[in-house]
């Protein structure tokens, strides 16, 4: 027993010593998967000597749930979408960036400074923005693609070949645009109609999937899939004969934002990281990697030719765009019920 105690003490002492030797400045990032190129992480570490530690998530809601379940104080920055910034502000999870703390704050494009989810950018900076709509296989459906009927009331040729994003917020918002009703409406007749419309549309859908939308289109397993514009561009680059739709009823825009979390263990490094991402040359690398637009001035000329000119990053004139709204508690309960009905 005594020898065991001794060896345990020795082991503990050793590991403490090792930790001290490796002590290094770091920033802990909670981020979406496949969204930050390794080359840029290396560049940041080379410039600042700060090590980047990253965990990833696959939905805004998963990120929120994990932070709420006790991960606050672990991470310095996270990258929530527009409506989730709103929610996190409401939950008191975000720290305030004081004026002057970010030297590159002036680089943010004017139209992204006073945004509905963070007026005046007190807690967040733009990361990437893009749209959520759907892509259609032109071999299967050569006609006009710019109509949400292809998802919710499709012709026989597409029925059973449709993949929807497995995301309540996106599906419900697009469904509301399709029906021409306001998002998060609490009008009973409209909610009932929304429920009935989705129930009728479900028979045409093959699957709900968010992670492999690109592969579904490239392999031809799905003829229509809801998809983010960057993924659609990638699918096309990989040989899928698809067209990205800007429906006349409307499509969804989103913006991911880097936020400073409350109780950040490395607050100063987090600010350096945010400043780094506001430099056009740096954020352009993310855009070229992820195929989405940055919210920073003077990025345009640094983007690849394909990204600047691709139909996925240049919305069709006359197609209305809308952010997904976060519903109030009462409406959200009904939305949950509709979603459960859809998947029961």
């Amino acid at each position: 027993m005594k020898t065991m105690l001794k060896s345990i003490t020795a082991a503990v002492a050793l590991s403490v010593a090792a930790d001290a030797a490796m002590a290094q400045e770091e920033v802990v990032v909670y981020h979406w998967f496949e969204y930050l190129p390794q080359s840029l992480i290396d560049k940041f570490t080379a410039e600042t000597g700060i090590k980047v530690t990253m965990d990833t998530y696959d939905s805004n809601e998963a990120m929120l749930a994990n932070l709420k379940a006790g991960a606050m104080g672990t991470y310095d920055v996270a990258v929530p979408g527009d409506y989730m910034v709103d929610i996190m502000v409401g939950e008191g999870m975000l720290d305030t960036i004081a004026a002057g703390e970010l030297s590159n704050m002036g680089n943010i494009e004017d139209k992204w400074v006073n945004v509905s989810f963070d007026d005046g950018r007190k807690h967040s900076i733009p990361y990437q923005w893009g749209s959520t709509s759907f892509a259609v296989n032109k071999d299967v459906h050569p006609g006009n693609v710019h109509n949400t009927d292809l998802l919710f009331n499709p012709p026989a040729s597409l029925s059973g070949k449709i993949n929807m994003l497995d995301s309540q917020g996106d599906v419900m918002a697009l469904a509301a645009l399709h029906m021409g009703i306001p998002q998060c409406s609490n009008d009973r007749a409209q909610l009932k109609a929304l429920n009935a419309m989705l129930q009728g549309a479900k028979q045409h859908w093959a699957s709900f999937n968010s992670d492999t939308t690109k592969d579904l289109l490239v392999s031809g397993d799905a003829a229509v899939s809801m998809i983010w514009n960057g993924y659609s561009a990638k699918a096309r680059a990989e040989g899928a004969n698809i067209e990205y739709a800007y429906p006349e009823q409307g499509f969804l825009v989103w913006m991911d934002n880097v936020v400073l979390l409350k109780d950040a263990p490395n607050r100063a490094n987090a600010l350096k990281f945010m400043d780094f991402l506001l430099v056009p040359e740096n954020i352009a690398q993310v855009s070229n990697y992820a195929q989405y637009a940055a919210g920073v001035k003077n990025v345009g000329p640094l983007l690849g030719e394909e990204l600047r000119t691709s139909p996925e990053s240049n919305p069709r004139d006359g197609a209305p765009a809308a952010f997904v709204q976060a519903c109030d508690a009462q409406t959200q309960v009904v939305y949950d019920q509709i979603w459960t009905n859809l998947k029961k």
Partner: protein
Amino acid sequence: MAGANIKSGIATDTYAKERYWLLLPSWAVLLIFIVVPVAIMMVYSFLTKEFRGGVIWEFSMAAYDQFFFDRGLFGDEPAKIEWTYLNIYWRSIWQAGLATIFSLAIGFPTAYFIATRDAKVRPIWVFLITIPYWVNLLIRTVSMKFLLRDNGPLNSFLQMLEVIEEPLHIINTNLAVQLGLFYSYLPFMVLPIYAAIERYNFSLSEAAADLYASKWQTLRYVILPTVKPGVIAGCILVFVPSMGAFLAPDLLGGAKNFMIGSLIEEQFKGNAGNWPFGAAASMILLTMVLIILMVFSRQQSKAQEA
């Protein structure tokens, strides 16, 4: 058997003093990783939900009410019995039951085959059974998806052999979910049955044959009763995780229908953010599993008495 008892008797005496100390790690593991989490879940299922995840520390039966009673889309109609969640549970039990039957049908002969090989090569066969399971379950399930799809390798192969003309539509059906569950949990069936058959004394089969028992009668009245504990262990090991599985239903079944696992996941990771309901659904699942296990063990002890 008697020899084993004497041996363990000596062992107990040798460590009589340290016994409780030595048991401490296992007790600690059970307490920290099973009792505490289940207790937290139980408490949470009786709390009030906080909007967008989290709980308010006020007692509430709302989660269980939501599970069992249907009050319409807006929650103000007279309560009816809620079939939605019961149907989800029934579907999961049915799927898990089928997966168990398929695994048993393939797993038993496989285990029998391995156990009847030469003692030297048996470890190799067991090793071969476990190799695919060194790969992460998620990766295996995604690979399965690519194998099964309409213009995937399986269909191309069958079309090349001219067995079929049109591709078989397997992906996004219940059959695909079945194949996924069966493939995921097959070794959990094979290994316990193998362990049981390996201990089986094959001279009993010879004795049965000497007494003019047919091969079927030998299997039914001699082998099966002897290896029954292994079969039951295998069935439980396949059935219980299949019931809570969500990878196979999501990736292979197209996530069109909730299973118990994905329903619970949605409460924590989805928009609903309804932690008490997720906890209540887990408690109901836990209760069901306990009841099933109790029925199993009661039958087993009855069989032993007889």
